[in-house]
């Protein structure tokens, strides 16, 4: 039975005000079942206030083989990093 069920990615918002975060994946036959399964597998101990599910096939992922060209720019362009500013202490999370 399970081999026919597509894979779904589960995103959970832990608290109001926070963004949805990827929690894991599971199998389900349809969206409604995916939502209920996600509730039972990932949020039964008060872990969340909102769930998104999306069928995994709809996620386009970058190829690890492309990591060089995508994520590793030359390190000598220091002007690309905003490191020349003095941040006031009040600014958090920068």
């Amino acid at each position, binding site marked *: *039975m*399970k081999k026919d*069920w597509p894979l779904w990615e589960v995103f959970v918002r832990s608290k109001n005000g926070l963004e949805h975060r990827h929690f894991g994946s*599971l*199998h*389900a*036959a*349809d969206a*409604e*079942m995916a939502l*209920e*399964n996600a*509730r*039972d*597998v990932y949020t*039964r101990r008060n872990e969340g206030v909102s769930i998104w599910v999306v069928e995994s096939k709809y996620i386009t992922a970058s190829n690890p083989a492309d990591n060089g060209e995508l994520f590793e720019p030359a390190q000598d362009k220091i002007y690309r990093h905003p490191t020349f500013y003095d941040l006031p202490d009040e600014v958090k999370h920068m």
Partner: protein
Amino acid sequence: MKNEDLYQYILGIADNSLILGQRLGELCGHGPTLETDIALTNIALDLFGQTRSYYQYAAKLAGGVKTEDDVAMLREEREYRNVLLVEQPNTDFAFVIVRQYLFDEFHLLLMQELQNSKDEMLAAIAKKGIKEVSYHRRFSGDWVKRLGDGTAESNERMQQAVDDLWRYTDELFHLTKADREMIGQGIGVDVSQLRDTYYNTVTELLQEATLTVPEQEYFQKGGKEGIHSEHMGYLLTELQYMQRSYPNMNW
């Protein structure tokens, strides 16, 4: 016991959750998929949580010598007050789902009324349980639709389960002596008044699931009076094994 009727009334509600929870617990590690296995075990844990509140209350009424474990584990078969529906075996997944749905729909109606009980403790337990029971009904109702309106085989198995379990539904609405006493005092729910709503709701969902509602006129009864089906003894043997073998054991 001074509050014998209230005590029996509480058992009449609590035992349904205990026995159904035990049945679902048997599936732990044996569910058809990882996700449904976890879902069914979750429901079992919800039911055990509710039943503990009832048994703690019952044990208190019994005068303090008894504990919730005594009430739950150390009664004879004839002293359990659950309906026959919840003790029926896990024949296949269709039976598990249909049994659950037929009970959940009733359970929700009961909790909705019980939260208006004059007994504050029962009202509080009901209020707390409603959210869980609403989810149970959503879960089992969705599965009834999915499997009833699924493949030819799933439809056939679901219809078989509905046909076999239907005969246990009428008992949900029977009144015991304890029921009548508690209704009179404004504590108990008159479940006989819930019958029409129940059958209308269930019929609507079964039809949506392309299942045929049985038209039988013969119904099984007895559980509420302690007269159980042949499955009950085996279930209790497993349920009570630890307390019988190692009296007073704790985790």
